């Protein structure tokens, strides 16, 4: 399972092998990028330590073009500043355990770019990057509130949200129209009607109900929140066992019965496969299904579009859009070099180019980058631009912290929804179990 690629990002290694052409463009066309970076580094408020060397761990790409652009930026950084960066890439689900081990033993990568829960799991081990956050926020129109919350603890920034991975409804235009809907429904009531009509037409839908870290968490939280259920109130008291949650679970049960069979075993990749093969007519996902269809020039691409999650009885958007956080460890011998790299990655030239190459898979966390043309050149990406403005954070309605991170990682909400939907337990029992498990985390 562990897909492990270790690469030293240096000019020589990138020039070797199959990426020679791409890298050639990077260095050649970016003679200017290197020069720019050099000038930028000289002006930067973060002066790196002499002879600094960094190790960075990032998660393995889902979208190839993003990864290539990221590597180009790293090459330019090394060229311009002389700071060697060893970049390791590993499977997304392995990043958090690695970060945990690094934090516990006090050795490992200097910088990690990975899932949202890490900063609040190991807050004491992370380098204070308030100065970087203020610098970037001041320069680029400020941070969106939700992703920023994942990086802030007690008024200090311990991590930066590099981007948010938007998760929205992916649907087949033709199937939805055939079911009698001009556009994808905007309310949960209409979504139910659509789901039943789709099933009747023999083109059912389905969302992941297995251990799907990204997709499962995204839609299960949305549906519970849309009906007014919440894991905790604003004071951190566990309130998941409530009539509102029950309503959401009854709603999911009905959805589940009208979905394609087998969604209870789906993880993050099953719905992609099922959607691309034409087996399901809507699911929830990042833009990666559409991006893959476009890249492989599949006919299905023209028939795919995206939509916001429908709004439930609470009357406002209740999405869960999770950021990817970049953080440096206190144990790093080169804290200033870490800060320099973190700032560099989010500066205009690099960030804009990278956002473009991520083709909608990532959404900006700094407001100025809304203007990036990635959102206008293909209208089917437009919904993903809003990922930071329509989301609640994973600790809703309480504060973010250890407990919220633990409950999310332990699949408390997903399990509850899945148990109730599949009829493995009654709605009441599912809520009671979730209540008990959540209390375990929120006791701290």
């Amino acid at each position: 399972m562990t897909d492990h690629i270790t690469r030293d990002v240096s000019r020589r290694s990138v020039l070797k092998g199959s990426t020679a052409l791409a890298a050639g463009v990077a260095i050649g066309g970016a003679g200017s990028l290197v020069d720019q970076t050099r000038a930028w580094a000289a002006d930067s408020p973060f002066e790196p330590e002499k002879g600094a060397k960094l190790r960075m761990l990032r998660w393995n790409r889902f979208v190839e073009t993003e990864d290539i652009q990221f590597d180009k930026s790293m090459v330019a950084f090394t060229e311009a500043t002389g700071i060697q960066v060893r970049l390791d890439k590993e499977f997304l689900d392995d990043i958090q355990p690695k970060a945990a081990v690094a934090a516990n033993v006090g050795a490992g990568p200097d910088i990690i770019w990975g899932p949202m829960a890490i900063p609040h799991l190991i807050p004491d081990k992370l380098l204070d990057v308030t100065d970087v956050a203020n610098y970037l926020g001041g320069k680029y129109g400020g941070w969106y509130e939700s992703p920023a919350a994942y990086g802030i603890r007690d008024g200090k920034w311990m991590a930066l949200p590099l981007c948010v991975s938007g998760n929205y409804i992916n649907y087949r235009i033709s199937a939805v129209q055939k079911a009698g809907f001009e556009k994808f429904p905007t309310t949960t009531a209409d979504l139910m009607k659509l789901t039943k009509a789709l099933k009747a037409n023999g083109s059912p839908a389905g969302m992941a109900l297995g251990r799907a870290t990204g997709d499962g968490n995204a839609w299960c939280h949305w549906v519970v929140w849309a009906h007014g259920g919440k894991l905790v109130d604003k004071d951190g008291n566990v309130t998941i066992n409530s009539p509102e949650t029950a309503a959401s679970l009854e709603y999911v049960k009905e959805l589940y019965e009208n979905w394609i069979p087998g969604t209870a075993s789906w993880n993050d990749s099953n719905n992609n496969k099922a959607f691309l093969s034409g087996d399901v007519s809507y699911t929830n996902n990042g833009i990666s299904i559409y991006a893959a269809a476009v890249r492989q020039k599949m006919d299905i691409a023209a028939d795919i579009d995206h939509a916001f999650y429908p709004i439930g009885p609470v009357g406002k958007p209740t999405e869960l859009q999770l950021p990817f956080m970049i953080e440096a460890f206190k144990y790093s011998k080169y804290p200033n070099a870490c800060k320099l790299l973190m700032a560099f990655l989010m500066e205009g030239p690099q960030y804009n180019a990278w956002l473009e190459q991520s083709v909608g898979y990532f959404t900006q966390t700094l407001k100025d980058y809304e203007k990036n043309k990635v959102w206008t050149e293909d209208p089917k990406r437009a919904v993903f631009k809003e990922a930071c403005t329509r989301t609640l954070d994973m600790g809703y309605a309480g504060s973010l912290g250890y407990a919220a991170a633990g409950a999310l990682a332990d699949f408390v909400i997903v399990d509850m929804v899945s148990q109730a939907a599949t009829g493995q337990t009654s709605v009441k029992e599912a809520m009671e179990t979730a209540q008990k498990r959540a209390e375990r985390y929120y006791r701290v």
Partner: protein
Amino acid sequence: MATDAERVRAQRTESFSDRWTQLKYDHNWLGFWFMLPAAAFLLLFLTYPLGLGIWLSVTDTRIGREGGFIGLENFEWLNEDPVFWLSVFNTFLYTTVASVIKFGLGLYLAILLNSHMPWKAIIRAVVLLPFIVPTVLSAIAFWWIYDTQFSIISWTLIEMGWIDENINFLGEPNNARASVIAANIWRGIPFVAITLLAGLQTIPQSLYEAATIDGASRWQMFRHVTYPMLTPIIAVVMTFSVLFTFTDFQLIYAMTRGGPANATHLMATLSYQRAIMGGNLGEGAAISTAMIPFLLAAILFSWFGLQRRKWQQGESDD
């Protein structure tokens, strides 16, 4: 006075160096010296982690944060946690069913392989294949085989007209349990079969000849010659097989992650989820520690239950 003190000190040094020489050349101590590296190795890599695991289980340690001693609180929480008890049930079901079938099929396969047949060496090598393939790879292969939309089993059965829609292998709790058990059996049989085959080959041919002269049927030969002679090997093989199955992690983690809704969570996978993913090292360690009594019981059962010598030699028990 000073000279006296010096003399005493000299005496002490002398006796110390004497003892040291004795230690160096004494044959009994020599054995100790030879064992020291192995003992250090065991202490460092077995006793220390085990001790640390048990210690963590009585603390509230979290990832990145030192914990304090909290007594048995973790275990009290687990005792009231339905997910934990579900994982205990799953682990027992998984271990029992998989081990029994692995033993039955493994023994059958071993007896088949022990008879004379063409291409014997190649067939024996092929039988080992499932054991050679890395667990995670075979788990991913099974994950595809069990896919709800693209399963080759569902596809074949539909093409043959036996069923109308795809089988929900991993999405329905009991199906999911059966599916992961089947994958474990596939993977575990070679170990049992090849080891028992080795055991079979140590049984002297003369015993079978004697039995034939006495007019024993094939079943009687198996029951009264093969089986008793094989018992010590069976004890060892099954102890290991039960231990491997009980502590299985990779197959489950790669295929279901314990889903759907914890229906296939084993104690090992739940421990990982709580400790590493959830950050709750203390509770995760408590789940691991809770496995120890069961494992000890399994070991003791197979050693004392299967290795009673009289029974082994075909006599009745006292």
